[in-house]
């Protein structure tokens, strides 16, 4: 049963959920874009602010767990959500049609993600995951009158539902074997030699989660949905969804020893290698920026899987650092995309040609995009370097030389297309296509972009406070 203390622990989730309700009521009462955005942003900010309070409370509501991992995940989710909400306002300004629902869906998705990172039970895991995905169908297809958005929505819905079926079936198998749905109990229940049902269930679970993480071979929706979805929706996919799902996967592996079995780890290693190579190779000549980022995310999730495989004391910390650096860079890239495009002008400005010579009329945007790309590529003095540093360190520490080799080769292949994007920004040749003009967006967007840019740099130059924070959380998570 829920106690008051538990409610304090659930505070962020509750705040976000109530904001969603508030927004819904607001829509029913009177539509107002700016107001809705403001409510959303402040709700998310409030939730973020309540995090310290929530984490301080020794709450343990049933089916949930609030440990360092959850706290880290919540923080990352809320930060991403905040950024997306802030950026959406400008992006949706030109949208013809109701705009307020988007915020509502965003809040629902964030709620789901918050639940997901804190779930300690297959039921919460499942329902949160669906709560995260369901609004995304709507968000991706939000601008359903443009063909791409509709296409992306349909593809995502169908494939995601299929993946959910796999996930559910896996859970059912595990449940059938152990009779438990609670992770800790389940872990205790399957102690001993791995059973085929458990392994099969775990494998099916991996299919379901792997789909959300776009691990090869469950990746094929990624580029299409990235490209077709509205930029803010894609950003949610790329940040909130990825990180929440990854954290829950990590929790599964850490908690349930069955995932530590050699066979599954071997399988995950194989998938990781496939994703590293495949994602990067697919992106090589991609002319569409959003699509390219989709492929790139495949590769990044491949790198990140190393954490799951190696485990150990450093794994949690690595996860936090890598996820955050990855998310910041992704936010930077999508922030620029959102800033440059807008639904008012039809489809997003996602073709690389839209960005040709961007530097020469909006240098700051180009600088941010450059930083993001460098960060994704893992070049020093950007946040991404420390992500890569951690992940390679982890691989080396675990003596997983194949994976380390994969990361190295993958990164090298990756450089090729990141550089391609970067150099495009600076080209200036006669007769080149002028990029979409930088529509005068509000101050909030600019501030958000600035914060992202500064974070990328700051994390690249002096990551110590952040690392310490993550290390502290990881330490806390290990104690629990």
């Amino acid at each position: 049963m829920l106690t008051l203390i538990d409610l304090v622990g659930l505070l962020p989730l509750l705040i976000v959920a109530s904001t969603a309700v508030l927004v819904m009521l607001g829509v029913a009462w009177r539509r107002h874009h700016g107001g809705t955005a403001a409510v959303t942003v402040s709700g998310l900010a409030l939730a973020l602010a309540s995090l310290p309070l929530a984490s301080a409370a020794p709450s343990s509501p049933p089916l949930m767990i609030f440990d360092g991992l959850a706290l880290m995940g919540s923080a990352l989710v809320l930060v991403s959500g905040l950024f997306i909400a802030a950026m959406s306002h400008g992006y949706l300004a030109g949208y013809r049609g109701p705009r307020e629902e988007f915020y509502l869906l965003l809040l629902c998705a964030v709620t789901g993600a918050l639940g997901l990172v804190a779930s300690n039970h297959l039921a919460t895991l499942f329902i949160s995951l669906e709560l995260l995905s369901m609004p995304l169908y709507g968000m991706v297809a939000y601008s359903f009158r443009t063909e791409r958005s509709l296409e992306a929505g349909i593809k995502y819905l169908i494939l995601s539902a299929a993946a959910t079926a796999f996930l559910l079936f896996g859970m059912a198998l595990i449940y059938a074997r152990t009779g438990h749905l609670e992770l800790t109990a389940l872990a205790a229940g399957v102690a001993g030699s791995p059973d085929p049902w458990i392994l099969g269930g775990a494998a099916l679970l991996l299919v379901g989660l792997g789909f959300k993480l776009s691990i090869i071979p469950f990746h094929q929706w990624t580029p299409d949905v990235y490209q077709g979805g509205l930029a803010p929706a894609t950003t949610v996919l790329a940040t909130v969804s990825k990180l929440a799902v990854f954290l829950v996967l990590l929790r599964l592996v850490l908690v349930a020893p069955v995932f530590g079995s050699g066979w599954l780890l071997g399988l995950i290693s194989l998938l990781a290698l496939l994703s590293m190579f495949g994602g990067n190779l697919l992106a090589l000549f991609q002319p569409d920026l959003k699509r390219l980022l989709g492929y790139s995310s495949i590769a990044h999730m491949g790198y990140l899987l190393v954490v799951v495989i190696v485990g150990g004391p450093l794994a949690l910390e690595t996860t936090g650092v890598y996820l955050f650096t990855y998310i910041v860079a992704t936010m930077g890239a999508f922030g620029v995309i959102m800033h440059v495009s807008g639904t008012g002008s039809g489809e997003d400005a996602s073709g690389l040609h839209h960005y040709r010579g961007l530097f020469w009329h909006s240098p700051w945007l180009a600088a941010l995009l450059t930083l993001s790309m460098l960060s994704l590529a893992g070049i020093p003095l950007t946040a991404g370097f420390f992500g890569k540093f951690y992940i390679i360190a982890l691989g080396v520490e675990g003596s997983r030389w194949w994976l380390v080799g994969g990361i190295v080769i993958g990164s090298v292949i990756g450089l090729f297309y990141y550089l391609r994007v970067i150099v495009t920004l600076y080209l200036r040749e006669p007769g080149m296509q002028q990029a979409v003009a930088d529509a005068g967006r509000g101050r909030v967007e600019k501030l958000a972009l600035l914060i992202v840019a500064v974070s990328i740099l700051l994390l690249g130059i002096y990551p110590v406070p952040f690392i310490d924070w993550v290390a502290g959380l990881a330490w806390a998570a290990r104690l629990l």
Partner: protein
Amino acid sequence: MELGFYLSGLVAVLATVGLISGSSPVHAVVYLIVSLIAVALVFFALGAPFAGALEIIVYAGAIMVLFVFVVMMLNLRPEAKRDPLWQRPGYWLGPSLLALVLLVALVALIGDGQAGMTIDGELITARDIGLTLFGPWLIVVELAAILLLAALVTASHVGRRNKPRGNRNRGGTR
């Protein structure tokens, strides 16, 4: 009881086969309803009457009505000319084989891990389930509520008819 299980199981499988191989939307919906009701009977046979009831009410009742409604709304007819691709083995052989292999693998897997447990049909009452749901699972129920809200909003937004007539045309020509 066992007989009921196997019989309704068989019906469910056959109805599903009919669903995936048929060509008429209306028939397909009916097949699906049959399949769902058969599964509901399976639930009864297994000793889960509450689940069975819900299966009929929610699934066969509500969801399927939605399907029927859409089929009617769009005035869908059986695909007049059968898809020529359908005749080509290249088209269906691969997926079917894939599904078959998956099936075999899963069956083998289930066969491998003999749990040795049998279902004796002991009843789990609605009360037990309710106590679970509104006890420790309360938060899950709340999340499910939000999920439904999200689905509602999505469906209402996406299902919106194109406002001006010309809008669709413009979209079509673009």
